């Protein structure tokens, strides 16, 4: 089944540790996104990529980095995790100019 795969599904992490959330899509979409979802705040855009080789900052990029070496993969890295990065992270992709997004199932991250 075509779609977006995120890993890990869930992770508990000590503060200060480095963590990479993986995202892979098989729909050949050009654009990919990382959102975080927090209670009462909805979804907030962290980083995006309009095409392989390019990335951009969203609403809450601090403490996060991304890369887009190819069309299919869009990993999100927390270089030194902090408790405020405890959240559910969603990867999404879009193949249209109108911005319709397809979402992965999410990665729940807890930073202690």
């Amino acid at each position: 089944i075509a779609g977006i795969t995120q890993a890990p599904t869930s992770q508990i992490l000590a503060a200060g540790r480095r963590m990479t959330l993986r995202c892979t899509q098989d729909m050949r979409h050009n654009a990919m996104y990382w959102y975080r979802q927090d209670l009462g705040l909805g979804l907030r855009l962290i980083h995006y990529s309009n095409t392989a080789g390019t990335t951009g900052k969203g609403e809450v990029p601090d403490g996060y980095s991304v890369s887009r070496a190819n069309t299919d993969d869009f990993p999100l890295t927390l270089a030194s995790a902090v408790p405020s990065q405890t959240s559910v992270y969603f990867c999404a992709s879009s193949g249209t100019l109108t911005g319709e997004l397809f979402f992965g199932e999410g990665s729940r991250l807890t930073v202690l």
Partner: protein
Amino acid sequence: AQSVTQPDIHITVSEGASLELRCNYSYGATPYLFWYVQSPGQGLQLLLKYFSGDTLVQGIKGFEAEFKRSQSSFNLRKPSVHWSDAAEYFCAVGAEGSGYSTLTFGKGTMLLVSP
């Protein structure tokens, strides 16, 4: 910059009753509008979308939404709610003409369905 307001954090509806979830947006040009649904522990699924044309759009699971430019609204409706509709609903707006634009989401409305 575009923004989305969902005024209701929670709504409780009896099973079989009608439903309307409110969404107001702010954007200077013609917006692209979306409603997504999120069941517990799941990702977001697209219910319906408006790009242009007929202002009443039909979606999956019996949902519909009406774009009203004069009111900057895109309210979601369903004539008869089922218990399986209990979920969180997000309205989102995208910008026209910006290529692979980013969507701005509202903070969501949690729908509870009572027996």
